[in-house]
C-alpha cells in the first residue's frame, strides 16, 4: 500500500454521529482514489455507515464544492459527506 498523501474526511449531521470511529485524516491509496472508492472503503469498514452514505440526497463536497462520485481525491483535499440539509 503506497500512500499518495493525506486528505481530510468530514461527516456532518446524522452521519457524524455514526462515524466517530473513522479518522479525520485519511491517506490516498490504491483503494481510495475517487469518491466512489472512498464510499466503498467506508462501507467495507463500517456497513452501518456505508448504508447511510449511499442514501438519496446524501451529497459529497470537496473543498466546500459539491462533487460527483468520480472525483479523484488530491492531497490536502477536504472531503465531506453531507446528509440532506434541514436549515431555515
Amino acid at each position, binding site marked *: 500500500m503506497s500512500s499518495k498523501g493525506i486528505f481530510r474526511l468530514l461527516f*456532518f*449531521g446524522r452521519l457524524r*454521529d455514526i462515524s466517530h470511529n473513522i479518522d479525520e485524516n485519511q491517506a490516498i491509496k490504491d483503494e481510495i482514489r475517487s469518491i466512489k472508492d472512498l464510499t466503498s472503503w467506508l462501507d467495507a469498514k463500517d456497513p452501518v455507515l456505508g448504508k447511510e452514505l449511499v442514501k438519496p440526497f446524501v451529497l459529497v463536497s470537496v473543498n466546500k464544492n459539491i462533487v460527483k462520485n468520480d472525483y479523484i481525491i488530491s492531497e490536502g483535499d477536504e472531503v465531506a459527506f453531507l446528509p440532506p*440539509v*434541514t*436549515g*431555515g
Partner: protein
Amino acid sequence: MSPLKVEVRIQSNDFDIEMEIENLRLDLANIGAIVTFCGLVREFECNEAGRNLDVLSKLILEHYPGMTEKCIEDIVKEAANKWNIEGVIVVHRVGTLNPNEKIVFVGVASAHRLEAFRAAEFIMDYLKVHATLWKKIVINGEQKWIEPKSSDHIKFQSWSD
C-alpha cells in the same frame, strides 16, 4: 446599476431585526421596499401529515463553517440574477436554541416591493434545501435529527417551473 450588497452571517447569538434592517439600508440609495423573513423555533414539531408531535424542548443547529456561508451567498447571487434587488442580509443561527427563539433572518432591499417579496421567498426556499445546515431536536431528553420535508423540496422545485 449599483453592485449588489450582500452580507451572510452564521452566528450563535440572537439578532435585532431593526438593527439588521438599518445595516442593510446603509449606503443603499433609493430603496423603496424592504421585505424580511424571520424563522422561529416552533414549540411543536409537526409531521408531514401536519399532526403535532411532542412538545419540543431544544433545537440544535449545526453547519459546515465556510461552506454554509458560500452556499447562501450563491443563493443570494442567483436571486439577484432573477430580480432587481439592491441588498440582502442573511443571518442564520447555529447551536442550541429554545422554542420561540429566532433561527433565521432574510432581509431584501429593493426599489420595488414585488421584487423584494419574490427574492426573499426564493432565498428562503433555496436555503431550506441547499444550505448546509442540519437540525436536531431534543424531545423528552432524546436527540433526533430532523428529516428534510418533501414539501420544502416541492416548493423549491416550483421556482423553475
